[in-house]
């Protein structure tokens, strides 16, 4: 990459990175607690991952290998742009392989492949406050966190069951971290919630517009809220991935034509490719091969 | 025990601040006592302070000076100076009151209005209602009315609900403010009989009865309230 000299390494100036790192350290020290930070203007609109990008920029080193996913995919606009951004401003190695990455910035998914020690998952967070939709006053939500008053969170789940007969919240499903702070896991599907629990990797959350950073350190208890008689459950898919035949993974619905044809395929594109490389094939692939 | 109510040198006046603060003396030096099983009727011309004395005894009116001693729960209580909650407790357990007018509570049935004082003393609702039903039928209140709130009842019907409510408990002291005022002869006789029963059980009764016939039957003693006129005290 050229023109690197016109930017400081990883775009942000060193003072800003230090400020953000301090916020990150504090967040790690108090798992699940939202640390305010002086979020900077980034060369992209709010909602495109300005929080995640600032966190990534602050922890990125020249030897890191970066992977960026958007809804599980490495090849969507948001992922491609952010990857290109860091290639340009930090000249770091990039990859689509979950195994190879040291830092994975994600929008709304956790990779299917189990993360390991030394890896860091950076979430892009639109609204960090899990109590926000029930309690609009920031002063009040801060107090509720401080005093551990989380009854309201269950009010939300109660409403779900009352209306739908079951907890219908499928994403941004609230969790309690290390038995203390209730946290919004960002709009990941609740399918991914169990992966956060006792994760070997460090998980960092950045909300640029809302100016908050929070974290789940490795090996931290993350429990999804529920009722005794309506326990937390992840989504179940009745078919395996149409491309790689994987079961127990999160699937996206893909519309194939305008006649109602559709298939369900892995949302984690890297995982799906990996499996196909190893010779697994779902029914769509098998059909294609049969047709050839 | 034999004298559950002793009134000693009680005086009462009203200060009417809205009328340039004029002071209206009502009674002074009221002194009497009532024995268990005795019915004392307050007598004298109207406006002499009979109702005021009854209201002081019940605690509705404050007392300027003097003592109103009642035996309550094995102790003597001076109602003239007692705390509100003590007054309420005395009313609950010791002191009953049958007023001329029923203070109607919206939506509560006649039967429950009558049963309430018993319930307040810890009697189970079914038993209290059974006792209430007994009294209401004794007072010839049509059964059809029992489950209705008495707001729409006639004066005589309300009066009978009121009497039943006042008589249902075994309070040691019972104040009667013209309980027979709007009753027909038949029901008057029932009330007279009920008063006699109370006396036999040792209740101390203090009443106002304008109906001379009733008064003569129930009264053991007539206390002329004109004797407590403040003009006499001043003289």
């Amino acid at each position: 990459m050229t023109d690197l000299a016109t930017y400081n390494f990883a775009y942000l100036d060193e003072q800003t990175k230090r400020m953000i790192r301090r916020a990150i350290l504090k967040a790690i020290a108090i798992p699940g607690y939202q640390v305010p930070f002086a979020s900077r203007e980034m060369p992209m609109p709010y909602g495109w991952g300005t929080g995640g990008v600032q966190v990534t920029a602050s922890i990125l080193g020249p030897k890191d290998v970066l992977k960026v996913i958007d809804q599980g995919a490495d090849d969507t606009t948001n992922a491609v742009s952010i990857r290109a951004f860091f290639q340009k401003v930090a000249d770091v190695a990039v990859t689509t392989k979950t195994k190879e990455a040291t830092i994975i910035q994600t929008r709304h998914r956790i990779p299917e492949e189990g993360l390991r020690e030394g890896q860091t998952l950076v979430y892009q967070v639109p609204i960090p406050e899990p109590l926000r939709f029930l309690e609009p006053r920031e002063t009040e939500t801060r107090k509720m966190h401080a005093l551990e008053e989380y009854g309201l969170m269950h009010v939300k789940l109660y409403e779900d069951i009352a209306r739908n007969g079951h907890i219908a919240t499928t994403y941004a499903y609230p969790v309690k971290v290390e038995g203390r702070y209730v946290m919004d896991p960002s709009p990941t599907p609740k399918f991914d919630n169990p992966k956060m629990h006792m994760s070997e990797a460090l998980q960092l959350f950045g909300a640029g517009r809302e100016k908050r950073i929070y974290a789940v350190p490795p090996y931290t208890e993350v429990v999804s809220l529920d009722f005794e008689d309506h326990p937390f459950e992840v989504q179940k898919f009745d078919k395996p991935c149409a491309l790689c035949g994987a079961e127990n993974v999160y699937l996206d619905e893909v519309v194939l034509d305008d006649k109602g044809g559709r298939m369900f395929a892995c949302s984690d594109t890297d995982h799906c490719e990996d499996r196909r490389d190893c010779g697994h094939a779902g029914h769509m692939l098998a059909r294609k091969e049969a047709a050839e | 025990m034999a004298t559950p109510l002793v009134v000693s040198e009680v005086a009462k006046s009203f200060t009417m601040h809205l009328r340039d603060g004029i002071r209206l003396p009502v009674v002074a030096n009221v002194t009497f006592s009532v024995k268990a099983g005795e019915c004392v009727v307050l007598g004298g011309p109207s406006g002499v302070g009979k109702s005021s004395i009854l209201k002081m005894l019940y605690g509705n009116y404050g007392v300027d000076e003097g003592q109103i001693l009642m035996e309550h729960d094995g102790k003597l209580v001076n109602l003239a100076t007692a705390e509100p909650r003590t007054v309420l407790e005395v009313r609950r357990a010791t002191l009953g009151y049958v007023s001329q007018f029923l203070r109607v509570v919206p939506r509560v049935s006649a039967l429950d209005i009558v049963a309430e004082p018993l319930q307040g003393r810890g009697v189970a609702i079914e038993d209290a209602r059974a006792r209430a039903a007994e009294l209401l039928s004794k007072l010839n209140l049509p059964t059809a009315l029992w489950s209705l709130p008495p707001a729409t009842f006639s004066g005589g019907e309300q009066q009978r609900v009121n009497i039943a409510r006042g008589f249902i408990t075994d309070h040691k002291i019972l104040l009667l403010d013209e309980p027979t005022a709007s009753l027909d002869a038949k029901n008057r006789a029932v009330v007279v009989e009920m008063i006699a029963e109370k006396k036999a059980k040792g209740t101390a009764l203090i009443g106002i009865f304008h109906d001379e016939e009733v008064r003569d039957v129930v009264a053991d003693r007539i206390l002329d309230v004109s004797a407590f006129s403040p003009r006499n005290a001043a003289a």
Partner: protein
Amino acid sequence: MSAVPLLKVNDVSKFYGSRIGCRNVSFDLFPGEVLAIVGESGSGKTTLLSCLSTRLMPTSGIVEYHMRDGQYRDLARMGEAERRFLMRTDWGFVHQNPADGLRMTVSAGANVGERLMAVGDRHYGNIRAAASDWLERVEIGIDRIDDQPRAFSGGMRQRLQIARNLVTSPRLVFMDEPTGGLDVSVQARLLDLVRGLVHDLGLAAIIVTHDLAVARLLSHRMMVMKDGAVIEQGLTDRVLDDPREPYTQLLVSSILQV
């Protein structure tokens, strides 16, 4: 008859700068006792209620509460967490405007169940059963349990607010003009309901009202306030039947007779 007061109020004053909110108020409230605070607008009754319920900090004076563990605690010295816990378990607060005391955008059932969930109840079925039970007690049809209070009439909202407060079996309830914005017929129903609940549950209550009929129907005792001070207090029917102070006499004589 319990010999120990639930709430001990000693010489409480509140000043807004040099302006007096309320001054030198002292009284004891016993379990099961209903106290009405009456007076005209600006007489300091709402300020006093706020000072007693820790919504305002008194300028001077002490308010002590008899905790369930048998100890008296100075409310001003209590930690915020403990105070808030007390407020949503052992206390209730019924606002004049139900919208101030309800969550208008969650269902009636959740409004009632919130306090239970706040104290750690995690069984949906039990919470819903408790909510149904309370809706029934305040005469709201069970078929309305999943409706939001936005769709309720003023009287229903007020009854829902009461249910929401009483679900944790508090021992003390504060009410600020509970019948304030309601039609007369709706008021009567609410008063009767409150009267029954207070009686059945043995609640102690402090009710601020400018309506003497409310005081007469609900309270055992009353305090009359004027210019921030308590000018007369005593047994409710004594104060109403035999008012002593000029202002109380004026108040009582101003009641319209129907």
